[in-house]
């Protein structure tokens, strides 16, 4: 299936919030092009505006200067071309896991719905949990349900806000492989916020580094490694050092800053 839809462009975008009658600039002159089918990750310190940027791409934030375009068209609100995994998983507590995954599939027939739900629950390793309620899940399981929900409605662009944040290291690596597999399979555009630099390098074509107050794009680093990637390869480590350098976490004193 040829797919050249799902190109996202952000042009000289700035965004302020009004806090106590003062205008507080959150994003400043953001320029970013994400080509159709690319995997781009955004890293940056807490509060630098990553979630805000994703919300603009999703269409939930409308007051900004500059442009946010999808396939050349201004984003005016959420649409089925874009899916989201929110930072808080945002499952609906009164729906079961299966019903949550089916939340975006309301217009489909029962049978198709069931098929898609089963498929995507299996994908995130939660088959058998259809009838559990979100309150009965661990944080990591809830995040996986949220991923299944976003994928089930087959978006062209999937926005992920720290989707693997609550997972243990092993599940996390497994989910990274799964995300990569899905991305290769579905050929959709993925834009993901993460705090994990290894994860960013493992998954993305480009790593966007943001810095805060106001949030600007400090640097965009290409990751020209072939897939699947070897986390221990020298190229991988070199790119990691390059990114850490941007956070002034040079390899000489990594621990002093990490604490």
């Amino acid at each position, binding site marked *: 299936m040829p797919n050249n839809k799902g190109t996202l462009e952000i042009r000289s975008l700035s965004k302020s919030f009004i806090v106590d009658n003062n205008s507080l600039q959150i994003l400043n002159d953001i320029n970013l092009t994400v080509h159709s089918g690319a995997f781009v990750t955004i890293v940056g310190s807490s509060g630098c505006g990553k979630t805000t940027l994703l919300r603009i791409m999703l269409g939930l934030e409308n007051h900004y200067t500059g442009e946010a375009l999808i396939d050349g068209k201004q984003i005016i609100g959420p649409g089925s071309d874009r899916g989201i995994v929110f930072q808080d998983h945002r499952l609906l507590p009164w729906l079961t896991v299966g019903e949550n995954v089916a939340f975006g599939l*309301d217009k489909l027939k029962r049978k198709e719905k069931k098929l898609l739900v089963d498929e995507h629950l299996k994908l995130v390793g939660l088959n058998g949990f259809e009838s559990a309620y979100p*309150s009965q899940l661990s944080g990591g399981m809830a995040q996986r349900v949220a991923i299944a929900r976003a994928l089930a409605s087959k978006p062209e662009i999937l926005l992920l806000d720290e989707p693997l944040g609550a997972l243990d290291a092993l599940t996390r690596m497994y989910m990274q492989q799964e995300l990569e597999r899905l991305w290769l399979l579905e050929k959709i555009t993925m834009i993901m916020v993460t705090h994990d630099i290894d994860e960013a390098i493992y998954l993305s074509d480009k790593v966007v580094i943001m810095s805060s107050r106001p949030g600007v794009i400090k640097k965009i680093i290409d990751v020209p490694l072939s897939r699947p990637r070897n986390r221990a390869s020298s190229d991988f480590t070199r790119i990691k050092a390059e990114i850490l350098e941007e956070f002034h976490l040079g390899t000489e004193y990594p621990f002093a800053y990490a604490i």
Partner: protein
Amino acid sequence: MSKKFIQRLGLKDKLLAIMVPLLVLAAWQGAVSQKLCSDLILTPPLTLLNTLVELAQSGDLTLNILASLKRVMIGFLLGGTSGFVLGILMALSPFLNRIFGPLIKALQQVPEFAWMPLIIMFLGIDESAKYFFVAIGAFYPMVLNTYQGVSGVPEKYHELARVFDYKSFRYLFKVIIPSALPSIITGIRLSLGLSWMFVVGAELFGSDSGVGYLMTWGRAVFQIDLVMAGLVLVGVIGFAMNLVLEIAEKRFLLWREPVDGRPA
């Protein structure tokens, strides 16, 4: 019976709950049979039971309970439904809220029994007056709790609805009402409870059937046991209705119960 078994049934709590009433009943029965006070004024519990059995056998009991329940149901449906609909509309439309909010707050200050003379003037003392009176009682808790529940739907769920393109009735029934359901159910419970109180009140004002009527009639013919039997009935039926709703609430809000005490 083992200790564990008793605990499992929650029998201990239940025993504790009926201990005081049983003691009071025993003391009461004792006081009357020792001729400490006249049994014309204070009917002993056993006589009361007897009266209830007689009422049941004559068919009067069922007839009057049904008459009251019918009024409760109709009044509750009228008042509760309009409260529910208005509560939703007010929570979703700031405009309607500005119109109806102050009005409802002002009217709420009027003690509900103060409506009675006006209702009697317009509707007389027939059935429709009673429905209307019960409906007023049912209306307030329903409109207030529904309003509170719906306006308290977290912004994150509204956003989710926007993302997945839920609009109008789908949005209302799949997102807003379920999210507000705990509050709405509280509204239903309070509303039905007040309906029951109000129906008895309305029947005391003038009626030829119903549990309230049993009591006024008992008073008129100076049959104190009838008055007291009516009191018992009012209590027991109100308690039973609340119990049924509690069970329904547990069933509907199953999702709120986490396995390990974590909040949803």
